[in-house]
């Protein structure tokens, strides 16, 4: 199997090199045979990389421990879903998985892109082939998943317990889809530069790809937070670890790109900026991978050090040099077609939003790389941690939240006082009112109050948009309100999908407020003893330690500590937190014991209990009780964000088939108030 896998990788190497070379050559010489060949390269690559991936998967499922990768990341008693996730659980496999997703995306891009962009496609194929080439080279020469051992161990080393969690089955693929998805808009950008076709055509071609990758990236990051929360047992979901930062940086620049691209579509401005943003996003993806795999900054998540980092560094340097040269030579063609007319306009708001997002990405980069930077320039390693990131990013985040409310409502070009009054009086009042209510309820934390005010303000602007739109349809079309709302969203998917995503962002911020009020207590309890904890919402929880039970479960031995919980004097059930000792197939313990927190989620607050151990030979238990307010809203926000993304992406924003038929038959009529179908947004 590994022979076939390795052979496929070599074949992929040749194909990727062919695709890169022929794509560039064919587009230059306009030789139709070469062009056709280049466009087929991504399909061929998808085929051979799929074969290679299948080989690794089969090796994992058949417990072929002679293969080093299989030995390192799986064992005979590993449940099947985790055997499959072991495919991307380790360095070598995750690189192959990356190549696989990349091939799938680039084949889909070739397949799905409408014919009118045919002039770009050979170059797009060349760029995606080039990136694939890099990953195949790394797979073959630095982290070969098909490497064999000189002997066959009876059992594998097993998968790390913390990766044995449903979150780990879905989180990495989603994040990879996001990372890899960015390659497609990036490839189009490079193709547009190379062909000098720098009108808005390429922007239309990538619109959906940009949103798809952004939604995957957002979902991947949120699922990562969820995994950290339910698995790592420290009661939080974000630690500003380099790996987390590595995924946040491209997310920030992509968010900036999503917005600034609208200005280019609408007003022909910001062409250079958009070019730089999409390239920056792609480079940050590769850079993020580099810092987590090279050991340059220490991270709790990092992979073992290997020569993989060197390959990434070389690729990064070549990439940055090449892109800089390319953009530089095309500068004159990227002049803006319009000028900024007023500070009080949507353009200006979007520009500030872009500056803040990119500024935030830069502070995250700065904080992550600070140990390296300070050692280079001052000779001492100074590190910054979560306090730095919070101190810097909370104000920037709040400014962005404010702009989230302003941006969509303010007029293009120049907002009139009437426009401002009509759009903002009610939301501003709502924001002020919400802050007042929060203050009266006892919120004293300045940032928390500000977040409440801004969240309410933004929520009110979104609600106002939905209400006004629905009311207008109700009036003009005599539709009842439910139909009017449904049609409003259906006819303007990009706009209202965007509002739903904004609403999700507001919900994230509301969830972040909860972090200010997190309450924690560590106690050791004998059976029958009781501890109590008061939540920020005024509930009095008491916990009575029942005892510890021990039993076998799947591939692990479990110590489970149970508590009787009561909330404000009323019995509220039993919660059980586990400490798991994973075993190999001989029944010997592997890895350190891991904790499995007991979590009870509620709309207001989560109860989070960690059983941290018990002194030898007793039934006493060490517990950490955490009350995390509003955490549940984070997961709800994540779901809503994906819903908003799907609404935006839902196909057929063009004229429906029926209306085309009517038009062809000469019956087409258009309501006076109906928005023109194309060109508006």
């Amino acid at each position, binding site marked *: 199997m590994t022979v076939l896998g390795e052979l496929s990788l070599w074949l992929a190497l040749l194909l990727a090199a062919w695709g890169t070379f022929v794509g560039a050559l064919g587009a230059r010489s306009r030789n139709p045979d070469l062009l056709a060949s280049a466009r087929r390269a991504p399909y061929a690559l998808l085929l051979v990389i799929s074969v290679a991936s299948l080989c690794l998967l089969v090796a994992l499922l058949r417990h072929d421990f002679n293969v080093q990768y299989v030995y390192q990341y799986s064992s005979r008693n590993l449940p099947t879903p985790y055997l499959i996730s072991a495919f991307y659980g*380790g360095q070598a496999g995750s690189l192959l998985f990356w190549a696989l997703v990349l091939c799938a995306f680039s084949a889909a891009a070739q397949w799905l892109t409408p014919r009118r962009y045919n002039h770009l496609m050979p170059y797009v194929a060349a760029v995606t082939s080039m990136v694939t080439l890099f990953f195949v080279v790394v797979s073959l020469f630095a982290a070969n998943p098909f490497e064999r051992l000189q002997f066959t161990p009876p059992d594998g080393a097993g998968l790390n317990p913390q990766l044995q969690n449903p979150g780990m089955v879905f989180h990495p693929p989603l994040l990879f889809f996001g990372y890899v998805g960015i390659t497609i808009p990036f490839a189009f950008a490079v193709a547009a530069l190379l062909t000098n076709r720098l009108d808005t055509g390429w922007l239309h071609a990538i619109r959906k790809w940009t949103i798809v990758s952004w939604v995957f990236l957002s979902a991947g990051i949120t699922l990562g937070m969820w995994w950290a929360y339910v698995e790592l047992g420290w009661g939080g979901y974000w630690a500003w670890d380099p790996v987390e930062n590595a995924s946040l940086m491209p997310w920030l620049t992509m968010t900036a790109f999503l917005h600034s691209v609208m200005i280019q579509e609408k007003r022909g401005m910001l062409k250079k900026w958009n070019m730089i943003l999409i390239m920056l996003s792609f480079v940050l993806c590769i850079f993020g991978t580099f810092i987590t795999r090279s050991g340059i900054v220490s991270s709790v998540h990092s992979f073992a050090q290997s020569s993989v980092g060197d390959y990434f560094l070389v690729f990064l340097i070549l990439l940055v040099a090449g892109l800089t040269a390319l953009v530089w030579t095309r500068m004159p063609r990227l002049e803006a077609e319009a000028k900024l007319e007023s500070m009080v306009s949507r353009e200006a708001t979007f520009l500030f939003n872009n500056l803040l997002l990119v500024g935030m990405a830069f502070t995250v980069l700065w904080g992550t790389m600070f140990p390296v930077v300070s050692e280079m320039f001052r000779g001492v390693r*100074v590190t*910054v941690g979560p306090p730095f990131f919070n101190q810097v990013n909370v104000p920037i985040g709040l400014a962005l939240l404010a702009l989230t409310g302003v941006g969509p409502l303010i007029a293009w070009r120049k907002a009139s006082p009437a426009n401002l009054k009509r759009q903002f009086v009610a939301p501003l009042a709502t924001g002020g009112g919400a802050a007042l209510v929060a203050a009266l309820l006892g919120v004293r934390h300045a940032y928390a109050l500000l977040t409440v005010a801004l969240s309410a303000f933004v929520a009110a602007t979104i609600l106002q948009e939905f209400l006004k739109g629905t009311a207008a349809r109700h009036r003009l079309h005599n539709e009842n309100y439910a139909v009017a709302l449904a049609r409003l969203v259906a006819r303007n998917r990009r706009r209202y999908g965007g509002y739903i995503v904004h609403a999700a962002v507001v919900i994230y911020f509301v969830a972040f407020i909860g972090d200010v009020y997190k309450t924690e207590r560590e106690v050791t309890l004998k059976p029958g003893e009781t501890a109590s904890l008061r939540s920020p919402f005024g509930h009095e929880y008491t916990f009575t330690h029942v005892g510890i039970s021990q039993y076998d479960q799947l591939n692990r031995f479990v110590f489970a500590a149970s508590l009787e919980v009561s909330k404000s004097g009323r019995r509220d059930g039993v919660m059980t937190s586990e400490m798991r000792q994973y075993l190999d197939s001989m029944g010997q313990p592997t890895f350190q014991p891991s904790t499995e927190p007991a979590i009870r989620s509620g709309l207001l607050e989560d109860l989070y209990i960690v059983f941290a151990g018990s002194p030898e030979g007793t039934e006493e238990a060490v517990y950490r009780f955490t009350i995390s307010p509003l955490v549940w809203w984070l997961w709800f926000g994540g779901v809503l964000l994906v819903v908003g993304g799907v609404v935006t992406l839902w196909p057929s924003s063009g004229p429906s088939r029926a209306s085309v038929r009517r038009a062809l038959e000469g019956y087409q009529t258009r309501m006076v108030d109906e928005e023109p179908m194309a060109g508006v947004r």
Partner: protein
Amino acid sequence: MQPRHKFVAGAVLITASVGYLMVSGVRDTGVYFVTPAELALRVSSDTSIHNVGIRMGARVVTGTIRRDVATQTVYFDVSDGSQTYPVVYRGLPPDTFDGDVDVVVEGRLAKDGVFHATSLLAKCGSRYEAQPTA
């Protein structure tokens, strides 16, 4: 003033604010990252080191871990091969904490040479990668 100039002024303001946040953030929250040997070198030359926060990366010496469950305190030694420091940490150590594991402790070095940690991160080489087989 032209809108363009106003925008530039706004952009400069934003950039300056972000820059200020970054500089002050590093000043307020930055901590020295040292190895035990580097720390020993500093202690001998500069006694004010006892007053500032330090992060120390080192390896836990096997067999020195002592857990006092009643007070939730962990006592252990860390070393980088040339210098060893005793560490006291009150709180629950992470799952991956064990003998011969790389840790990062953050806290202060007391005058008596004991490192009082307020945070303890265990970096486990096998977090994602299996230990190389001996």
